[in-house]
C-alpha cells in the first residue's frame, strides 16, 4: 500500500531547493519553439479583418476583390449582411495567402459597408451609462448583526441600521475609487497553425489548455476529439485568456481542411488587444466606518463595472476584500459597453476588489492619523479566523524587510525633498489555488532513463521543472535526470492552467505516478537484495535498505532488473480534503514604498516587498520568479497600463505596444520576495501561486502614493496625468 506524502524537509534532496528551469536555456537561446514559430512546409498564412466600428450593422461584405490580389489563395466573409457588430475588432472576414504582404493587400481590398449604431464605451461615468440605458442593476448582499423586528419592513430596517452604525462610528470615510480596464497583452498573440491531413487535425495552438481543447476543434470539423492533436510546447503568455480554441482557432482548422494545406492564423497586435481578452474595470462609491481603534465596523459600497457586451463584469464577492466587517452592504451595477469581451485575468476579480476596498480602508488610517500597519493589524479581527495568525506573521516579516517602522510617517506629513515626497502602503490578499485533476504517465527505462508524460502546459513559470523536481525527489535522482514531456493532448490529461491550479495538480499526479512506479521497481529490487520492498528508499542515485545502507543497488542497476521493456505507470492525482500532497487557500502581504514628484505627477517605485505563503515549496527559484513577475505585473496596472477608448467612435486608441504603456526594469525599483514556509505551512502540501501575488499591488502602491501625497489618487493606473489631475482637483 503506497502512502502518498512528501518527505520531511530534512529528508528532501531536491524538493524545496532552488533549481534552474529545465527549459531555461532553450527559451533563452531561441531553441524553444512557440506556437507562433511553427510553420510546417506549404503553410498558408491567414489574417482576419477586424471591424473598424465599435457598433454597427453589416450592410455588405465583398471579398471577391481580395481573391484577385496576386498571392491570395482564398478569402471569405465571416459575417453576413444584417449581422450586428458590438465591439471594434470583431472579425468579419479572412484572407489566406502565400505571403504576409499578399494577405495584407487582400485585406485592404475587401469592400465592406456598415450602418453605424450608437456607441457607448465610458463605463467610468455611471450617470452617462444610466442615461444611455446601458446600466443594469446587479446582485448585492447585506449582512447585519441585528435583525429586523417581526413587524419591521426589511429594507427600511437596513437603511436605519446602516445609518445608525455610521452615526456611531468614530471615523467615516466616503469616496470614489476606481481601476480601469486592462488587456492581457500576451507577448505571443492568440492563434494557431492548423494542419489537416487525411481526416485528422494537428493544431499547434497557443493555449493554457492542451488537454481540454481537442473537442472544441472536433465538433465544428465533423470529427471526434480522438482525431485531433493539440500541441503547445511553449506559450508566450496567456494570463487566463487562452483556455479556448476560439473562433479564430476553429477558423484556421476549417481553412486547413478546405484548402488541404496547413494554415497559420495568429491575431495581429491591435486585434489581439481589441478582442482577445480584457480585465473588467471597477469603480466604486464606498462609505466605511470604524471605531476609535480603527477597527472597521460598517461598510457600504456600490460598484459598477463593465464586462463589455457579454457580461463578466466585476463580481460582488470581492467587496469588501478580505477585511470584511460584521456589518456590510454591497451593491453592484453592470454597464454594457461596446468593448471587447472580458476574459479571466490572473486572479479574476481579486485585484480590483483589493484595489477598490483596501484603499478605502487605508483612508480610514489617514483620517484617524493612524499608522496604516497598525490599522491593518487591528482589522485582522475582520479576516477569516483561520488566517489571522498567518497574516499577522507575514505582516511582521514584511514590515521588517521594508523597515516600515523607521520609514513610516503619517499621511502627507513626510519629509519633502524639493517636489519629491515618499510614502508607504500595504495590502493583504487571499486565493484558493487547489490542484486541478491531472494524470501522469511515468516511464522508467531499463537503462535508468526516466520520462514523464502529462497533457499539461507550461505558462512560462516552470511546470516542467516542477514535475522534474517532484519525480527527481521521488526516485532519488538529480532534477535534470528526468525528461518531462508536456504540451500534447495525446498525453494523459491535465486540467487547464488557470486559477493557480497547475502546480498542485501536476505535483499530485507526478508524485502519485512516481511512487506507484517506484513501488513496482522496489518489488524487483527487494527480491534481488533479499530485502523488504517497504524498507527500500530511493536517494542519491541508489535504492537501498533503510536498515542497512550497504544493501542496495545504483539506480541504473535497479532499472536493469526491469528486463527488456520499460516500466510504465499512469496515475491520477487526488487533490482534495484528504490529500497530504496538496491543499488550497493562501494569504499574502505586500508593502510598497514609492517616491512621487508632485510637480510632474511621476510615481517611482522605490521598494516593493512581497511575503507569500504557498504551503510546500517545490522549487524555490521558480516560485520566487513567479512572485517577481506578479509584482511587476501589479506595478503595470497600478502605474502604467490602461485600455483607452475613444468615447465617440468606440475605437481602442492605444491598441499597440508603443501606446499601451508597460513598465520596464528601470521602473520597478527594488523587489523583495520572502516565501513564508514554516512547518505548519509546509505540512499543508503544495498550493498554487500564480494568482495571489498579483492581487495586492494595486492597493499597496495606491496606499503608498496616498501616504506620500496626503491625497488619494482614486483611480488606477496612477499615471502622471491621473496624479496631476487629482492634485489640481483637490487644490493640493
Amino acid at each position, binding site marked *: 500500500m503506497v502512502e502518498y506524502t512528501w518527505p520531511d524537509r530534512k529528508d528532501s534532496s531536491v524538493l524545496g531547493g532552488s533549481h534552474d528551469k529545465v527549459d531555461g536555456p532553450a527559451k533563452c537561446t531561441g531553441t524553444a519553439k512557440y506556437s507562433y514559430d511553427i510553420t510546417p512546409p506549404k503553410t498558408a498564412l491567414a489574417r482576419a479583418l477586424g471591424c473598424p466600428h465599435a457598433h454597427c450593422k453589416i450592410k455588405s461584405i465583398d471579398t471577391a476583390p481580395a481573391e484577385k490580389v496576386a498571392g491570395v489563395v482564398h478569402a471569405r466573409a465571416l459575417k453576413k449582411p444584417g449581422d450586428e457588430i458590438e465591439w471594434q475588432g470583431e472579425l468579419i472576414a479572412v484572407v489566406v495567402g502565400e505571403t504576409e504582404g499578399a494577405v495584407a493587400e487582400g485585406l485592404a481590398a475587401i469592400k465592406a459597408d456598415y450602418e453605424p449604431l450608437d456607441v457607448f464605451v465610458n463605463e467610468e461615468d455611471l450617470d452617462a451609462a444610466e442615461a444611455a440605458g446601458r446600466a443594469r442593476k446587479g446582485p448585492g448582499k447585506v449582512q447585519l448583526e441585528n435583525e429586523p423586528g417581526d413587524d419591521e419592513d426589511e429594507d427600511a430596517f437596513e437603511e436605519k441600521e446602516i445609518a445608525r452604525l455610521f452615526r456611531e462610528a468614530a471615523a467615516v470615510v466616503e469616496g470614489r475609487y476606481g481601476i480601469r480596464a486592462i488587456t492581457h497583452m500576451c507577448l505571443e498573440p492568440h492563434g494557431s497553425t492548423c494542419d489537416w491531413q487525411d481526416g485528422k487535425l494537428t493544431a499547434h495552438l497557443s493555449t493554457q489548455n492542451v488537454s481540454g481543447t481537442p473537442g472544441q476543434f472536433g465538433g465544428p470539423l465533423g470529427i471526434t476529439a480522438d482525431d485531433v492533436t493539440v500541441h503547445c510546447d511553449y506559450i508566450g503568455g496567456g494570463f487566463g485568456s487562452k483556455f479556448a480554441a476560439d473562433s479564430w482557432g476553429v477558423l484556421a482548422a476549417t481553412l486547413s481542411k478546405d484548402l488541404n494545406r496547413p494554415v497559420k492564423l495568429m491575431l495581429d497586435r491591435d486585434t489581439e488587444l481589441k478582442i482577445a481578452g480584457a480585465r473588467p474595470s471597477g469603480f466604486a462609491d464606498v462609505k466605511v466606518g470604524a471605531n476609535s481603534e480603527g477597527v472597521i465596523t460598517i461598510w457600504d459600497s456600490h460598484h459598477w463595472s463593465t464586462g463589455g457586451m457579454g457580461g463578466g463584469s466585476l463580481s460582488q464577492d470581492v467587496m469588501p476584500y478580505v477585511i470584511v466587517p460584521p456589518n456590510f452592504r454591497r451593491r453592484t451595477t453592470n454597464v454594457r459597453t461596446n468593448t471587447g469581451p472580458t476574459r479571466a485575468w490572473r486572479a479574476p476579480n481579486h485585484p480590483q476588489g483589493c484595489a477598490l476596498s483596501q484603499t478605502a480602508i487605508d483612508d480610514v488610517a489617514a483620517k484617524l492619523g493612524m499608522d496604516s500597519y497598525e490599522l491593518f493589524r487591528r482589522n485582522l479581527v475582520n479576516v477569516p479566523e483561520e488566517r489571522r495568525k498567518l497574516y499577522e506573521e507575514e505582516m511582521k516579516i514584511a514590515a521588517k524587510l521594508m523597515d516600515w517602522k523607521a520609514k513610516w510617517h503619517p499621511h502627507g506629513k513626510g519629509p519633502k525633498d524639493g517636489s*519629491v515626497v515618499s510614502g508607504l502602503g500595504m495590502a493583504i490578499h487571499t486565493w484558493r489555488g487547489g490542484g486541478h485533476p491531472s494524470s501522469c504517465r511515468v516511464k522508467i527505462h531499463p537503462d535508468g532513463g526516466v520520462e514523464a508524460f502529462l497533457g499539461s502546459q507550461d505558462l512560462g513559470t516552470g511546470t516542467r521543472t516542477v514535475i522534474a523536481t517532484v519525480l527527481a525527489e521521488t526516485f532519488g535522482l538529480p532534477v535534470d535526470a528526468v525528461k518531462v514531456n508536456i504540451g500534447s493532448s495525446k498525453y494523459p490529461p491535465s486540467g487547464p492552467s488557470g486559477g493557480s491550479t497547475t502546480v498542485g495538480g501536476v505535483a499530485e499526479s507526478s508524485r502519485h505516478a512516481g511512487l506507484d512506479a517506484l513501488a513496482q521497481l522496489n518489488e524487483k529490487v527487494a527480491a534481488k537484495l533479499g530485502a523488504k520492498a517497504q524498507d527500500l528508499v530511493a536517494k542519491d542515485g541508489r535504492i537501498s535498505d533503510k536498515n542497512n545502507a550497504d544493501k542496495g543497488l545504483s539506480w541504473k542497476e535497479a532499472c536493469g532488473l526491469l528486463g527488456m521493456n520499460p516500466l510504465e505507470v499512469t496515475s491520477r492525482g487526488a487533490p482534495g480534503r484528504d490529500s497530504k500532497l496538496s491543499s488550497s487557500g493562501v494569504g499574502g502581504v505586500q508593502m510598497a514604498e514609492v517616491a512621487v514628484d508632485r*510637480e510632474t*505627477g*511621476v510615481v517611482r517605485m522605490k521598494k516593493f516587498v512581497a511575503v507569500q505563503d504557498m504551503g510546500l515549496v517545490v522549487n524555490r527559484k521558480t516560485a520566487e520568479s513567479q512572485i517577481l513577475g506578479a509584482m511587476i505585473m501589479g506595478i503595470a496596472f497600478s502605474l502604467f497600463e490602461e485600455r*483607452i477608448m475613444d468615447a*465617440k467612435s468606440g475605437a481602442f486608441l492605444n491598441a499597440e505596444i*508603443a501606446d499601451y504603456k508597460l513598465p*520596464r526594469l*528601470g521602473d520597478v525599483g527594488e523587489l523583495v520576495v520572502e516565501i513564508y514556509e514554516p512547518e505548519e505551512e509546509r505540512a499543508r502540501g503544495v498550493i498554487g501561486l500564480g494568482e495571489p501575488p498579483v492581487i495586492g499591488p494595486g492597493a499597496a502602491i495606491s496606499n503608498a502614493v496616498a501616504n506620500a501625497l496626503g491625497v488619494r489618487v482614486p483611480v488606477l493606473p496612477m499615471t502622471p496625468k491621473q496624479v496631476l489631475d487629482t492634485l489640481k482637483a483637490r487644490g493640493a
Partner: protein
Amino acid sequence: MKAFEYAAPRSEEEALELLAPEPGTSEVLAGGTDLLGLMKKMIVTPSRVVSLSRVASLKRIDADSQGMRIGAMVTLDDLLAHPATAKYPALEQALRGFGSLQMQSQGTLGGELCQRPRCWYFRGGHGLLAERGRAVAEGDNRFHAIFDNAGPAKFVSPSRVAPALVALGATLRVIGPEPGDETQMPLELLYRTPKDERQREHDLLPNQVVAQIVLPAADGRRSAAYEVHHGAGGQDDPIVSAAASLTMHGNIVADARIVLGQVAPTPWTSHEAIRAIVGAPVDQRTAEAAGEAAVSVAAPLSHNQFKVQLAKVAVKRALLKAAGLQTGGLA
C-alpha cells in the same frame, strides 16, 4: 504591408533620381524604426521605398572649430559616441534619453527628425489631421498639443532630438528635388503646422531629402535637455520635453533659446520664456517664472491640462540644468 519596389542607391544623385516623380508614391527609408510600422499598418503605402543606407556621404560626421556636420544616416549611437557631441550637452542628453539599444543602433538622426507624429488618430488611419481636427478635439487628446492647436492640426511633434538641435541653432543641408539641387535652412523651418491633409508636418518639397544636420560651434553656450516621462524613461516617447541653450554674461543670461517638444505640431520655441529669462540670472525663482511665462499662452484641449503643468516644469528644469543647478524632482 502593400507590395513595393525597393531601391538602394549609392549616391545622393542616384537617390534623388530613384525617388518617384509622383509626390507621395515613394518614401525615404532611413533606419526604418518608424516607417516599417507605418507601412505594416498601411498608414503609408508607398509604391517605392528608397533606402539611403548605402549612401556613404550621408553617414559621415565632420567636426571642427566651426561646429559639426552630421550625415542624416548617422545612427543615434554613432552620434552619441562621437567626441564632439559632448560639446553640446543638450544634444547628448537628448540622445541618452532614448535608453534603448535597438532605437539607438538602428535609428538615424535624419529619421528621428523626420519621423511621423505618434497621434493615435493618425496611426489609427484617420489621417494626419484626423477629420480636420474634430476626432482629436472631441476625443482623447491627453497627449496632444497645448500650443498652436487652434487649427485642424492637434498632433505633437514627436522628435526627441529636434528641441535640442533647434535650441543649439542647427541648420540643415537639404538635397533635391532634382539631382544637383541643394539648399540650406534652419532646422526650425523644416517643421510646419499643416492646414490640410495634402500637407505634411514638414516643409520639404516632394522628393527633397534631409542630407546633413549642421551645428554651429558651441562657443561656450550652455545647454541642457529635460524630458518628462511616464516612467523612468527609455524608448517610450516623453510626454513633454524642453531644451534650453544659454549665452551668459557673467551670471546674467544674455541670449537664450528655449524649445519644447511634444507640446505643439512643431518643436515649440517659447519666446515668452526667452523674454522672461534674458537679462536675469538663472535661479529657482527666475527659472520658475520662465516656466510660467512659457505656458501663459498655452491652450489645453479637453484632456491635456496636465501637460501645461509638465511644460512649465520642463522649462524650469531645462534652464536650471543648463545653468548647472539642481533641477529637483525624481532623477
